């Protein structure tokens, strides 16, 4: 998926739509849509707000979640599963107005209170409803937000370090090593990552032990997906940098290769690295949720958003919120990340419009 896109855009080398957008901005003002788009691209406040929420949820979410993560919580056991789930669903707005009234009507209160009282009671407790085993969806979302952040902090970061290091060395030394690396990256790109991830997870188990921690295999799989994204772009950048005069001067002054790479090349590629990382993040989050969805990523009791979407799928007739709420969460995060990445690219390294 992501690899295809990379390849396409690198090889065609054509500018993305944003390049042409600059002249669109000059004649702005005539059209409110143009103006709205311009400000959204220029000041991505909403996306940054959503991403900040995600970060906060990941840090403090599990401590402030109103309900336990894995334990179903039933308010009154006299109600059947569906009644409970439906009652909790109403505050969300219902699917259609007809549905809403239908749901309000068929609700039977066993304790003698009025219907509306009971609904209000349930609604207050579960902000986003409860799932098929009575677990609070909001709490599970909060717990699940950690996984996206884990993917970014572990998989993306380690992939970034690995990919950048490979790119630095192959770009700096060139020659046969560079040739080998390029071929290897091409072959790596040609593998269908979903399948590879499934095989790896199946063989080694969904969790592996690293020292004292049990780590999700998924994080390593995603690291192996992430690192190739960096190699080509950064290698090209290193090719340019290593020919510059200050690098030659450093070499004349007797600096070692390692010193040149670390002190003279790394600062020069830092912007590119950050931009490529932010552009790859949404792809990785998508990959994580897809793998969790098909059952090859995070395993069920842990509420990854993809897992939640998959679990709710069977109940789409009776309680669509089980799957729509986590699905929307994934969508919003990826959308914000796309906006944020584009913005960062325009700010830090506009040349990358052509490449990434």
């Amino acid at each position, binding site marked *: 998926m992501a690899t295809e896109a990379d390849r396409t855009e690198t090889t065609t080398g054509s500018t993305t739509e944003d*390049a042409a957008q600059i002249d669109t901005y000059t004649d702005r003002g005539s059209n409110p849509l143009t103006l709205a788009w311009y400000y959204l691209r220029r000041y991505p406040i909403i996306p940054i707000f959503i991403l900040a929420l995600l970060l906060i949820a990941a840090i403090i979410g599990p401590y402030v979640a109103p309900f336990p993560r894995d334990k179903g919580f039933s308010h009154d056991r006299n109600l059947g599963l569906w009644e409970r789930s439906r009652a909790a669903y109403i505050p969300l707005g219902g699917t259609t107005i007809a549905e809403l009234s239908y749901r309000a009507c068929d609700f039977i209160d066993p304790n003698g209170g009025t219907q509306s009282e009971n609904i209000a009671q349930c609604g207050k407790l579960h902000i986003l409803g409860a799932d098929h085993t009575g677990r609070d969806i909001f709490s599970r979302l909060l717990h699940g937000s950690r996984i996206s952040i884990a993917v970014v902090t572990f998989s993306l970061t380690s992939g970034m370090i690995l990919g950048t290091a490979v790119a630095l060395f192959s770009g700096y030394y060139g020659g046969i090593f560079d040739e080998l690396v390029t071929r290897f990256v091409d072959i790596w790109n040609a593998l269908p990552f979903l399948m590879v991830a*499934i095989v790896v997870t199946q063989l080694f188990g969904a969790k592996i032990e690293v020292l004292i921690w049990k780590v999700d295999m998924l994080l390593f799989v995603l690291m192996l997906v992430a690192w190739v994204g960096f190699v080509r772009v950064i290698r090209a950048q290193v090719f340019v940098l290593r020919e510059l005069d200050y690098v030659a001067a450093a070499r004349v002054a007797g600096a070692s290769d390692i010193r040149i790479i670390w002190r003279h090349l790394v600062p020069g590629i830092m912007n590119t690295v950050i931009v490529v990382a932010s552009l790859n993040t949404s792809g990785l989050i998508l990959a994580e949720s897809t793998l969790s*969805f098909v059952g090859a990523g995070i395993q069920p009791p842990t509420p990854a958003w993809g897992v939640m*979407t998959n679990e709710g799928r069977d109940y789409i007739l009776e309680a669509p919120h089980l799957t729509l709420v986590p699905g929307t969460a994934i969508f919003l995060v990826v959308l914000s990340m796309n906006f944020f990445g584009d913005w960062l690219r325009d700010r830090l390294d506009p040349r990358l419009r052509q490449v990434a």
Partner: protein
Amino acid sequence: MFRFLAGRILTSLISVFGATLAIFILVHVNPKDPREIFVPQSGYGLTQESWNRLGDRLGFDKPAPVQYVEWLGRVFRLDFGVSLGLQIDVWDIIKGRLGATVQLGVGGWLIAVLMGIPTGVVAAVWRGGIFDYLARFVALVGQAAPAFVTGIVMIWLFSVNLTAISDDSPFAFLRIFAMPAGGRTPDELRWKEYVLPCLALGWGSAAGLMRLTRSSMLEILDSEFVKMARAKGVGNTTVIFKHALRNALIAPITSMLLLFAGFLNGALVVEIVFSWPGIGQVALQEAVQNNDFPLLLGTVIIFLMYFLVFATLADILYTVIDPRVRLR
């Protein structure tokens, strides 16, 4: 040209060997006895004799390179063994399901191409108009929504909500696209059932293609020779179709060929969502959930070959269309 072709095909062959070698190593580097993943986890009803026979079949007494070559020979003869769960030859299972997956992939690809490229052209020509913003909005949504979420929302809209509305509603006709409940067999598929899965599969790529087409069209419309044509007094239609479109379409057409190989990846997920009777369902539902390793391995290898063949073809066609690539 010949050099390029030879090089490209050589790279693909290396990829095939590399990938099979990687799978072989993965299977054998496993700390467990490799036999354990070829038999049901409980080891139910397995005698010592058949355990040894399995070892013989896998060639444990031979050195690893010999084992690899023998395994590769079996793979090329399409002998993947017998599925643990279904007790049917793995290749037979895959053969019966491959068609549906290819149909889905082609359908999704057609949607991506037919939606993405014309929309991109129109959006570029009417830049800043309502249609442009609409197209860009749809593209943004398509790029951010994973295929499984799109698919589920479609099922929810069409199969759940549309069945609740009255018959005289203007939207009632959309019901024909609703998926019938329960699984289906490949020969029952009707064209209406293709619409939603293909749309779910193709939307993301359509968004990418649309952005690419739009940007390359904008770039060309801004170039000197188009201005020249306009200055000479050539009509708008002629400029767009004769001068700009032909040049602008090189990038999207080449990328749409490359997209095709990637579609099989996405097809797996969409198959699960729509209970489509293709390989994805076998590979993911049955093989992953039942720990059916021979089935999984067979599927993966078939998939890998399929993927590599299409990627190579796309690359070769790419150079035919755009000869500049060969210079790199």
